[in-house]
């Protein structure tokens, strides 16, 4: 179980490859891996967005994400989990968030990955400020519904 707050761009597929290589004790045990990657689009709510600033609450963010991952691990018998979230200045097409879980069966993997992601979107203390193409910037006021 690992939570990373990253102020540099990350490559989700390389991160998954690296993380999975370091869990040889799970070889043959996991049958299912579910992954979600959120990526920065160049539009939101009808406007073109050129760049974004992602603020977080250092300390509380990590603590909250670790709590979600631990609760989800208990509820869904997760064998492993990985959460990476970008902060700072983010460009179009940059990955913003990665949630990955490893389980024995697929049902648990699908449900746990989605649950972690929904909790993160609704409760983890991150805030997006969008830089619009017209030079203005604005705080994003709410996320789209996940269910």
């Amino acid at each position, binding site marked *: 179980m690992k939570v990373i707050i990253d102020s540099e761009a990350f490559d989700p597929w390389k991160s998954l490859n690296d993380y999975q290589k370091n869990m040889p004790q799970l070889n043959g045990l996991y049958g299912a891996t579910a992954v979600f990657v959120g990526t920065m689009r160049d539009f939101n709510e009808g406007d073109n967005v050129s760049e974004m600033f992602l603020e977080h609450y250092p300390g509380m963010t990590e603590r909250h994400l670790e709590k979600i991952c631990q609760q989800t691990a208990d509820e869904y018998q997760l064998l492993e989990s990985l959460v990476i979230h970008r902060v700072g200045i983010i460009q179009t097409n940059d990955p913003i968030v990665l949630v990955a879980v490893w389980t024995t069966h697929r049902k648990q993997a699908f449900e746990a990955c989605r649950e972690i992601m929904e909790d993160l979107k*609704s409760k983890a*203390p991150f805030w997006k400020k969008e830089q619009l193409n017209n030079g203005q910037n604005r705080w994003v006021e709410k*996320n789209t519904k996940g269910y």
Partner: protein
Amino acid sequence: MSIEVKFFASMRDLIGEDCEIQVDIIEQQSIKNVDDIWNFCANGKKRPNNVLIAVNMDYVDGKAHIKDGDEVAFFPPVTGG
């Protein structure tokens, strides 16, 4: 003997430049809970209905009591992910 108060994102813009305020609760004996902290720091600004509050990095509501050394944070609905 003090409380550290933090404001994030649009809540920091609302309050002004200071994003972290130290409140001395010996000098401010009327401060008992989170609502009192807001009133003390916000220069008369109304607290938006959707504001979220954390004490020592756990979510609480406005009636939560505070004690010496607590860290209190006010922030808008989160928009990560």
